[in-house]
């Protein structure tokens, strides 16, 4: 059996099978990306926060556009070469296409990687709009000192044991309570045990489940049963291990099954009883349970109490002496404040003790007050005074203790402004110059210019020693150093390696952290849609490259049996490749430029 029209076109449609197939597939791809673009459009139009315009460095996207367009040309050349039966040329063009695909994915990887390591925090504080200032930057690193408190360490030590990113929540744990119906918390237990090191976490109270066979014999009373040999016992003081927890879980689940089974049997017996007693008709009236059976159910409840094992569903471990556990904020089910007596993990494990001071420490490479401004305007307030009143611009840098950061010693004077206020003042000077310049052209500065201070601006202001007058003059003369489109040090955003130590240091108390995330889909809907669409597009690139690569490396046999067959296949693969290019043609302006 042979399927017709694999190579040659059917006369009335003029097409071979796979061409029909690929165009149908492309039509469905159009609706797939249509759905995604709808998502983008409506999330953007109805966003309740200022949409991040031009949030991405343009250069990688631009290069990728060139790369994809170039590969579109070479793939069509590869097809033409096959049509002209030039195998060598086909190989060359196809190889270039694949190299382009590889380059595209590498650039994508660099971009993604920069985002994953870039932290953003939405601050929260008082004031008419609850602050909502946003700072961006790189997290610093910290470790625990011998008192179990957090101290900052140099970035060079980030790979060492016990060093963690400075956004963690520290809890001085004295008790851990596990819910035994959650066999999925193994990951947490492992992490806790790892952090415990040589510290002991022991069972606070013996866990006993009486033996159900002994119970059913009815020869002993409950106290005897609890003390008897056959009961399941894990003694007080046993150390926490995953195996122990598994055993406790198994024992609990088994006991629960047994208890529920007994209760079910009693309930079923009650229904039989009421059917016999009251007749089918009355038994089916809906309020029967509450009215008729009170006595019967009370009697049953007594019996059930005697017959069931009643194993506790939670088990508590004692941490003695208490030591500090470090959790990722996302592991905690709710926000905690310093001094709270407990923190709950996502799987309902309760960590009792004390929440320690756990500030976020970062090098700041951008300030963003657009949300503050938007909310202020919504309240009918002038944004600038509101911004001046935010926590970020008004807080006093810490100067207590030995581990003081001497960053702004040079500028200390008797100036009581913090570094961010200084940056902001410079920014206002720059904005003034910019506004004046634009006014002459009948234009106004954009929101981005007004309320956002970029990494290159921060560096430029710093270079001028935060001298407001100098900033104004240089801005006016347009000699202020800004990052250009082709500056490689900002290729994938602010570069903390090249500009090490130049970005201002910020310590945010836990109470002022409103929402924090790296620049991943979690940060806002823009990054969510950016990662989703480009990720899917990247998968298409990989898929297309695999297919084209197959033709390049394994197509020789097909070429020899029938060159037209391979030419058709490459045409079909090429159509898909062009479509991928076509999607990117829209993605580039939408995600990078708008």
């Amino acid at each position: 059996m042979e399927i017709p029209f694999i190579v040659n076109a059917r006369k009335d449609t003029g097409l071979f099978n796979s061409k029909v197939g690929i165009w149908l597939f492309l039509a469905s791809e159009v609706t797939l990306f249509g759905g995604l673009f709808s998502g983008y459009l409506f999330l953007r139009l109805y966003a309740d926060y200022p949409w991040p315009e031009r949030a991405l460095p343009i250069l990688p996207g631009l290069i990728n556009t060139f790369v994809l367009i170039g590969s579109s040309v070479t793939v069509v050349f590869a097809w033409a070469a096959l049509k002209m039966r030039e195998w060598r040329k086909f190989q060359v063009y196809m190889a270039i296409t694949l190299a382009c695909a590889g380059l595209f994915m590498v650039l994508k990887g660099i971009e993604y990687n920069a985002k994953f390591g870039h932290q953003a925090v939405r601050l929260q504080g008082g004031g008419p709009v609850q602050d909502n200032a946003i700072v961006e930057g790189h997290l610093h690193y910290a470790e625990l000192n011998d008192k179990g408190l957090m101290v900052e360490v140099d970035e060079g030590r980030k790979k060492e044991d016990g060093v963690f990113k400075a956004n963690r929540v520290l809890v001085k744990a004295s008790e851990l309570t596990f819910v035994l119906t959650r066999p999925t918390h193994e990951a947490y237990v492992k992490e806790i045990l790892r952090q415990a090191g040589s510290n002991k976490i022991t069972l606070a109270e013996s866990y006993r489940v009486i033996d159900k066979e002994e119970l059913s014999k009815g020869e002993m009373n409950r106290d005897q049963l609890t003390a008897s040999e056959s009961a399941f016992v894990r003694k007080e003081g046993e150390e926490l291990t995953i195996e122990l927890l598994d055993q406790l879980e198994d024992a609990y689940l088994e006991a629960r099954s047994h208890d529920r089974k007994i209760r079910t049997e009693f309930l079923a017996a009650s229904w039989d009883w009421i059917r016999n007693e009251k007749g089918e008709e009355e038994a089916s009236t809906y309020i029967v349970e509450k009215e008729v059976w009170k006595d019967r159910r009370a009697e049953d409840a007594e019996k059930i109490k005697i017959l069931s094992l009643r194993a506790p569903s939670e088990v508590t471990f004692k941490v003695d002496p208490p030591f500090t556990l470090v959790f990722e904020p996302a592991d905690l089910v709710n926000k905690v404040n310093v001094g709270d007596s407990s923190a709950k993990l996502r799987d309902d494990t309760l960590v009792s003790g004390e929440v320690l001071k756990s500030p976020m420490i970062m090098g700041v490479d951008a300030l963003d007050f657009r949300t503050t401004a938007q909310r202020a305007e919504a309240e009918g307030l002038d944004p600038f005074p509101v911004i001046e009143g935010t926590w970020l611009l008004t807080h006093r840098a810490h100067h207590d203790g030995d581990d003081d950061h001497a960053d702004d010693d040079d500028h200390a004077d008797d100036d009581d402004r913090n570094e961010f206020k200084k940056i902001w003042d410079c920014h206002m000077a720059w904005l003034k110059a910019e506004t004046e310049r634009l006014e002459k052209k009948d234009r106004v500065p954009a929101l981005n210019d007004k309320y956002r201070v970029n990494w290159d601006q921060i560096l430029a202001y710093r270079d001028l020693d935060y001298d407001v007058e100098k900033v104004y003059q240089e801005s006016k003369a347009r000699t202020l150093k800004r990052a250009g489109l082709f500056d490689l040090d900002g290729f994938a955003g602010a570069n903390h390696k090249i500009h090490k130590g130049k970005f201002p240091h910020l310590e945010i108390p836990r109470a002022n952290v409103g929402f924090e995330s790296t620049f991943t889909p979690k940060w806002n809907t823009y990054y969510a849609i950016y990662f989703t669409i480009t990720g899917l597009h990247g998968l298409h690139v990989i898929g297309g490259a695999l297919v084209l690569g197959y033709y390049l490396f394994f197509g020789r046999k097909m070429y020899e049996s029938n060159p037209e067959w391979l030419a058709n296949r490459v045409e079909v693969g090429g159509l898909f490749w062009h479509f991928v290019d076509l999607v990117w043609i829209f993605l580039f302006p939408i995600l990078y430029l708008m």
Partner: protein
Amino acid sequence: MAGSIEEIKKAKKLYMFIGTLLFFFTVVTVMVATVEWLDFGDHGFDGVDATIGLCIAAFKATLVMLIFMHLNHERPLIYFFYSLGLVMAFFCMWLIGWSKSDPIEFGNESYSDGFYDLSKPATDVHGRGAKE
């Protein structure tokens, strides 16, 4: 479809030209977005720039479809498939957009579809608290 060797040779020149055109328009798009003397509208980036950028993108996409994907000379069936996809994607966007932009109105208050509308004074119409 280009069949003979001559036609393909001729087509190759066209592909080269289109490729160059695509490069060129990419550069134009970036300039519209970044260079001040090519910036439209009253400030840095705004609706006008967006429209121009998307128009250029649409033009580029059309070139790719017509020349690289050979839609300038294709079989009717293929136009049918592809336009069906485009039409459905259009319906998807258009009707969702219409649904979202058609609020139920009571006097001056409009109840749109549950977005937290910050352009309006915070009167807490959705009962979720004006302040976060």
